[in-house]
């Protein structure tokens, strides 16, 4: 392609990149949420061996660069296991695991924020283990965790920009393509930055609303 000025089609490209970024973000957040809560449940029931393994994996994922994790899954895994991994698959696997590690930490502290005495009380009232978890622990833990989770979501949206390095055509990759074609780095990267910024603000605002709703029971209602 000949390099040249911007065309209207570039806006479509940016939109496409944005939708890929958002989809990767939504998919990995959903998978990460389920996985992270599952890991936290393992810890809640103190399942031996599995619990130590989960802690080790979560700590390693939290304390290593996402870029290296992406490389390990995208370049390393296919060679070791003799399988094919597409960039999108590698991105989803890595970011889900990474998100799960952070959600695990939030979930563990959220569960611990519910006092053991409440769980004992629930047992005394004859609630089953599942009922205790579902009716007593999880509503309070969710209200506790929602703030940190929103912060995490804003952060993980930005982490999705790294998947461009392994060839997923997300917003950052589109930025790279447009940058190389038009040689207008200031315009391109400002546009890309603004789009990410707006998404982050949107997440923060929606999260804020959700948080207000979840905490409505503990609000001061007046006398």
């Amino acid at each position, binding site marked *: 392609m000949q390099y040249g000025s911007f065309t209207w089609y570039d806006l479509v490209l940016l939109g496409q990149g944005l939708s890929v970024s958002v989809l990767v973000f939504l998919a990995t957040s959903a998978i990460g949420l389920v996985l992270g809560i599952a890991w936290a449940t393992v810890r809640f029931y103190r399942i031996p061996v599995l619990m130590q393994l989960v802690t080790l994996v979560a700590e390693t994922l939290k304390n290593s*660069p996402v*870029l290296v994790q992406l490389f390990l899954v995208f370049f390393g895994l296919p*060679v070791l296991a003799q399988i094919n991994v597409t960039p999108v698959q590698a991105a989803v696997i890595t970011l889900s695991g990474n998100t799960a590690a952070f959600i695990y930490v939030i979930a563990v502290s959220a569960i611990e924020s519910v006092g053991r005495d409440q769980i004992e009380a629930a047992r005394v009232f004859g609630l089953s283990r599942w009922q205790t978890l579902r009716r007593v622990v999880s509503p309070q833990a969710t209200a506790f965790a929602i703030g940190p989770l929103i912060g995490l979501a804003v952060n993980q949206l930005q982490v999705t920009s790294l998947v*461009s390095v392994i060839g997923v055509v997300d917003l950052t990759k589109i930025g790279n393509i447009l940058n190389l074609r038009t040689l207008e780095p200031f315009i391109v*990267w400002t546009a890309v*930055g603004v789009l990410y910024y707006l998404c982050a603000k949107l997440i923060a605002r929606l999260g804020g609303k959700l948080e207000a709703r979840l905490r409505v029971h503990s609000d001061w209602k007046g006398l």
Partner: protein
Amino acid sequence: MQFDLTVLLPHLGVLRDGAILTAQACALALAGSVVTGALVAMASTSASKPLRRAADIYVDIFRNVPFIVQMFFFYFGLPVLGLYIDAFTTGVVALSIAGGAFTSNVIRSGILAIDPGVIEAAQVFGLHKRTVFLKIVMPIALRTSIRPLGAVLVNLILTSSILSTITLNELTGSAKIVASDTFRPFEVYFVLLVVYAVLTWSVSLAIGALHRRLNRDIVEVVS
């Protein structure tokens, strides 16, 4: 394929050089972040409203735009302005600016936690505004925020892996070279993951010890 770590032995030199470059970049970026963060924190705790507003905008932008986008902005943008600086400098500058946004929040809360009586006493002694800030406010604020600053440093180390995308052969960049030399990406990136995890883990341990040592005269409510 067999998992075999011995293939890495002849390439340890390359990895060591990369690690040294990472350490240099992180050390410089940490210094840059603390300086930037202190300036921004000074603005955000100042009496002037426009300054506070400017500091808020700075933090808001650099926390809500992915680091890789910020870095590309500088890396591709500065040459357009006629500023030809190398990848290392660009990386350190970008890390310092982004790190500064996080550091400023840490230092800001350190400043706000200072007993107003201390500052009033300094003012009563007729000390100049600048002297009060440099000799009284900053030492106390920095000392009490060693631990959160350590978290920023850990983040900086993890984020510095992204510098490999602008042709800088730091730890991750040199691992990429070793991976393509040996055709053993899994081993290379696995070792890299462990190295980063051990590195950041020992940094946070060291920072925790330093924090306790420097704040030993302060009775902590929560240790």
